[in-house]
């Protein structure tokens, strides 16, 4: 597999959200606006790249049986770093993402990539894989966030597109998250079949 396809698979062919259905909790939980989705996606990308990097470096030193706990420690460390950094420099985003920042630890996507890719591949490939998967995840969250924000409150990244009174409130609320994602996946399935 060349580097480009290794990078780009995360966006479409093996997109975490639309195809693999990994990391669904933050996908649904923090996408009531495009900016929150993007923030969450980038935070996850950082954790994914760093943990892939470290796992690729230390994989040979780790006895097989304690592999998973070791990976979890590595991931949790980077999650806490992200948590503290965001609290210090982007407090508003930190407040709106709330509980979902520490929960990046249990995002199946992160552990999944560490276990399925980084523990078997070289350093460079692992970093590119993490970057591709992470940005693909961020893209999916931003798309879902944009759709919900636009339909629900008539805005896009906080800019008013049409008056809020005409928005369909339900899309900002919990049920809208499920329904919007359902139709997005159906749409992508359809596109894929034709491609």
């Amino acid at each position, binding site marked *: 597999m060349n580097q480009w396809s290794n990078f780009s698979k995360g966006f479409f062919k093996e997109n975490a959200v639309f195809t693999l259905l990994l990391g669904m909790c933050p996908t649904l939980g923090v996408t009531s606006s495009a900016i929150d989705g993007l923030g969450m996606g980038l935070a996850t990308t950082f954790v994914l790249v760093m943990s892939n990097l470290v796992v690729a470096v230390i994989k040979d030193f780790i006895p097989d049986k304690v592999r998973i706990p070791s990976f979890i420690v590595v991931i949790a460390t980077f999650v806490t770093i992200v948590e503290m950094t965001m609290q210090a420099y982007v407090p508003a985003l930190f407040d709106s993402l709330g509980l979902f920042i520490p929960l990046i630890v249990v995002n199946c996507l992160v552990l999944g990539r560490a276990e399925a890719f980084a523990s078997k591949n070289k350093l460079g490939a692992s970093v590119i894989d993490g970057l591709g998967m992470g940005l693909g995840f961020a893209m999916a969250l931003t798309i879902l966030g944009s759709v919900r924000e636009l339909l629900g409150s008539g805005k896009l990244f906080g800019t008013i597109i049409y008056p809020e009174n005409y928005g369909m409130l339900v899309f900002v609320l919990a049920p809208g998250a*499920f329904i919007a994602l359902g139709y997005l996946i159906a749409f992508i399935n359809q596109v894929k079949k034709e491609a």
Partner: protein
Amino acid sequence: MEYVLIVISAIFVNNIVLSQFLGICPFLGVSKKISTGIGMTGAVTFVMVIATIVTFFLQKAVLEPFGVGYLQTISFILVIASLVQLVEIILKKVSPPLYQALGVFLPLITTNCAILGVAIMTIQKDFNIVESVVFAAANAIGFGLALITFAGIREQLDLMDIPKGMKGTPIALVVAGLLALAFMGFAGIV
């Protein structure tokens, strides 16, 4: 009265799956059959209550006195991961039938964000130990209620004629959305 409020709020109003978005992976993953849904609920209830008790004491006895609150995420997830393994080993020895029923679900639980989520929420809400246990148990019931209801609907869905593109996950998500809409009717009762 306090406890009643916690229970009703956790099961209906702020349902952990349908309004807090925690534990979505198992909610979508093991909801194809009612029987597996019940098994998963059992395993989650078991681990969630124990994990909440353990992390509660960890927070109060270790993290807070030593001023290392920033190690919360890392220590909680480690405790939960080892706890799941421990429960698995003990169940295998002590109660083989129970292990038979719950065993396959246990490894999946480490990455169930509902467990870690509830453990952290308990600390954030400043509950005492009894409230924490009640809260954890109620959340597990809420999880079970959503999961089993959803599984029931999905069993019926298999028999339906669904447009091609909507088959599988998309229709399941839309159904979950409608379920969440129904649960919104409970809002404001506490």
